[in-house]
């Protein structure tokens, strides 16, 4: 039987990265995910890897870029304000096709003071955050077991498509403890990293020059054509979602991350009370499972989006259902208390479902 251990979400991020063969990690401390750095600082030297605490998030992401040039598996992790500082290097990595993994433990809003608190106010930011007109895949786990799987999957997707890949968690998922099954994963074969910069002696004397879109680029339209084709391949093969009790559902909750976990409890209690509720959970936030969601929404006839934010996921849901089904929204005002420690809890979600029936 697979070994099961109790683990926090943050420790699981680090453990999963090491399981995926990531030996190099660059980061700057920020609540609520510094435990990832603590774990890496402790474990990476033991396996001959490199842990480096940078002079800031901007530098951490550039270090990620620099280390990724070697073709090695590398990772950084941060939380919302830190991710904002990383956007320039991360955008550059997307454009220059330098693969790496970023884990974002989102927290509430910009600035300090809310540090360490839950919230899901980065959906739009992570799905539309890069400049340069391109996208990167975002995986959104909702349990410690999924964090373990998705961080490893993220490394695979990154290498498969030569693209920066993100895993988005939050305060609740990062800090919570639950059972983790230490499974091993085989996601399939990967292409050779012939683009890596390890000195031209490595490549029979042929030198590589990696760069971003610049004035020196001779075929801009061709470059974007290639990128659009790559996006399409990712959309076709990597779009992921999960449905829970939707087969006969006449009420569909759409949610991701910690609020999806709360929604699951609400679905079960609703079912116990004779309400045929189901849950649709996008697992990749980009690419967003539009078609699958539209089908489920049309089947159920009624949709409630639950997210701990003023309304971001709801925009993608509305785009997906194209006005063919009413879309209701339960957001940050539904927290059990108004303060930073507030959470959207299953009982409140169930109450909303009952009111909308």
């Amino acid at each position, binding site marked *: 039987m697979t070994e099961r251990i109790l683990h926090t979400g943050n420790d699981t991020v680090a453990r999963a990265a090491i399981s995926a063969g990531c030996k*190099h990690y*660059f980061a700057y401390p920020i609540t609520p995910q510094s435990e990832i750095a603590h774990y890496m600082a402790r474990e990476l030297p033991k396996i001959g890897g*490199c842990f*480096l605490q*940078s*002079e*800031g998030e*901007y*530098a951490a992401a*550039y*270090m*990620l*870029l*620099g*280390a990724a*040039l*070697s073709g*090695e598996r*590398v990772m950084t992790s941060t939380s919302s304000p830190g991710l904002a500082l990383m956007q*320039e*290097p991360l955008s*550059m990595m997307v454009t*220059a096709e330098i693969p790496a993994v970023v884990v974002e433990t989102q927290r509430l809003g910009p600035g300090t003071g809310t540090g360490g608190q839950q919230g899901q106010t980065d959906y739009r930011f992570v799905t539309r955050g890069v400049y340069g007109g391109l996208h990167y895949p975002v995986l959104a786990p909702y349990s410690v077991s999924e964090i373990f799987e998705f961080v490893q999957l993220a490394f695979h997707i990154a290498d498969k498509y030569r693209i920066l890949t993100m895993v988005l968690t939050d305060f609740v998922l990062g800090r919570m403890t639950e059972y983790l099954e230490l499974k091993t994963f085989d996601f399939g074969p990967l292409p050779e990293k012939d683009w890596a*910069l*390890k*000195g*031209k*002696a490595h490549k029979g*004397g042929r*030198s*590589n*020059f*990696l*760069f*971003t879109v*610049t004035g*020196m680029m001779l075929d801009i339209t061709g470059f974007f054509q290639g990128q659009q084709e790559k996006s399409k391949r990712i959309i076709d093969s990597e779009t992921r979602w999960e449905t829970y009790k939707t087969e006969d559902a006449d009420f569909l909750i759409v949610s991701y991350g910690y609020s999806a976990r709360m929604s699951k409890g609400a679905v079960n209690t609703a079912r116990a009370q004779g309400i045929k509720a189901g849950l649709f959970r996008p697992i990749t936030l980009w690419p967003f499972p539009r078609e699958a969601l539209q089908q489920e929404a049309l089947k159920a006839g009624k949709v409630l989006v639950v997210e701990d934010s003023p309304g971001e996921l709801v925009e993608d849901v509305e785009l997906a259902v194209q006005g063919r089904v009413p879309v209701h929204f339960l957001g940050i005002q539904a927290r059990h208390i108004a303060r930073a420690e507030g959470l959207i809890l299953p009982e409140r979600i169930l109450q909303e479902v009952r009111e909308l029936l």
Partner: protein
Amino acid sequence: MIEETAITKNLVCKTPAFRLLPLGFCAGCHYGIIFRLIDEVLEEMELKGITVCIGGGGCSAMGAMAMDVDAFGGPHGPGTAIASALKRVCPDNFIFAIQGDGEQGAIGLGSFVAAAVRGENITIITMNNACYGMTGGQLAPTTPLGMVTPTTPEGRDQEMAGFPFHGPELVAPLRGVAYAARGTVHTPANRQRSKKMVKTAFQKQLQRLGFAVVEFICACPTNWRLSPVDCARYIEEKMIPEFPLGEFKNVEKNEG
């Protein structure tokens, strides 16, 4: 490799094995001389097979593009952070970064000093042309007092823009720094001195002694609005008095 032209035919020494020729620098610019010099040192030290060059934004990016070594170019400022991480992951590779003075003294100052503080075993080549060459010659941290630029139309005034920035002198006292020097290529003698500086700086990395930086004073005829000859005179009269040439630190062996 490149088409023979009237210019290349009459060269006294062989053309460097550049990936990109001709270089797109303005007439009288010193960058080409410096990149050639670096290329010669890499060749002579037999480093090309293991070298990765990190280029910056602006004119200095073209060096990384041109030299026939593995290279990354584009980001403006964080070259030292990129080089630091790559060197740590690939300690057996030779990693150097080319930076403009604005990258080192302004937007990338934090990363430059942080890498020096950590004693990263990398080499930094700084191009000090006293302005932001590619964006139109605006004020750089290294602009001498009184120099007119589009963003200092009355000349650099210390009240408004502070005093010129001295990168090598700034980091030389840090314990992680093995080598800090400044040279020019505006005369043949200086070119030879500067080449020795680059060689020494590269040596420090091979000996794993720590952070090394060589700054070059370079002419920017286009933005200085001077002829190449007058640029050399400006370097003598204005730049060198502000930015002294020579070695500010040269650590021979590890302090342990």
